């Protein structure tokens, strides 16, 4: 099941906190995190990797990144 987190307009640590909260619920095996700055993109990728998740893809459009992360 895929879950989408809209973290646009938020700066860290919020996008990371939201992502980790979702990972902790254990409901989703794929999460799409939407962020709009490079630092958040990097931080969410780093946090997901440290929890054993994999960054499956990053789509950018007009400065908005859709990060797809999957349970490893």
């Amino acid at each position, binding site marked *: 099941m895929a879950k989408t987190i809209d973290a*646009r*307009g*938020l*700066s*860290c*640590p*919020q996008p*990371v*906190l*939201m992502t*980790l909260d979702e990972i902790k619920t254990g409901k989703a095996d794929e999460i799409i995190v939407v962020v*709009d*700055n*490079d*630092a958040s*993109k*990097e931080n*969410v*990728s*780093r*946090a997901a*990797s*440290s929890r054993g998740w*994999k*960054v499956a893809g*990053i789509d950018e459009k007009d*400065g908005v990144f859709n*990060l797809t992360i999957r349970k490893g």
Partner: protein
Amino acid sequence: MKGIKNIFAGPWGIVGVGIAIGILAPLLQKLGNPGNMGVCVACFERDIAGALGLHRAEIVQYIRPEIIGFVLGSLAAAYLFKEFRPRLGSAPIVRFVLGVFAMIGALVFLGCPWRAALRLAGGDGNAILGLLGLIFGIWIGTLFLRGGYNLGRTQQTHAAAGWMLPLFMAGLLLLMLIFPQVTGEAKSGVLFYSMKGPGAMHAPLAVSLVVGLLIGFLAQRSRFCTMGAIRDFVLFRQMHLLSGFIALIVTAFVVNFIAGQFKPGFAGQPVAHTMHIWNFLGMALSGLAFCLAGGCPGRQLFLAGEGDGDAAVFVMGMIFGAGIAHNFGLASSGTGVGPYGIPAVGIGFAVCLFIGLTMRKNIA
């Protein structure tokens, strides 16, 4: 690691940037900046406030080119790597207030987290109290973050809005060039200059500016943040930013040692006092305010350089805070805390706790 193509944001990038700052800051001291103050964002913004006459503490008045460089270096990096994103609207007035109290706390301790690190690397034992206070303040902030604290979303805005702080900094540089320091004169045109004290101690303008630009550029790329270093470790056990901060301290220690600038002890340290409780609590207030505002004072300058108007408001809050800190006698000196420094720290904590407890709207 997939998802991170920016080499400076990788594990060795952040350590490299910490090492670079750890070399450059003690060198700035060697070239004229005050003791254990190669770089101090709070002190330097306070000096800028003095140069503009926002306070009239005569020994701390100088437009510090390092600060100008931090913002413009970050601006250059942001444009070069297509990361300039003009944005604002995330509770700007709250960020202003947090900036005010972050500065007041820093001036009770006598330094921001950058200087706390450099003071430790120069042998100043009082910095241990400051750094412990910083950790304590950030830890309180993380409790709020876990409880859902946030300042709300930003919105995209006009590029010109993102240019406001960079233009302000360019304006300061222009003022310095039009009204340069005149030996033996306390004023040049509209600018105030210090004839003695820390404000009279500075590396040559061009050197300060170039080093500032370089650090601004590197820090924008690496997201270097002294508050984030501790926050991310407390929140996520994430070592990434912390590794850069530790690299800075270790490198600065080595460079200070080689340059003969390492002088261990508590008493008689440059621009420092030995009132342990207030070193601890001053920096704790500062750390809490930085944590609630999402970045250390350096990071706020780098964010402002990449178009973050809210970070720019925080910077203005710090400059305003420096004005009242000296006008009201809140700032410490080498002899100890100022006459009203202690109640100011109390008010600062009350305000930060109020903000932390009340601003927890659900953003999901």
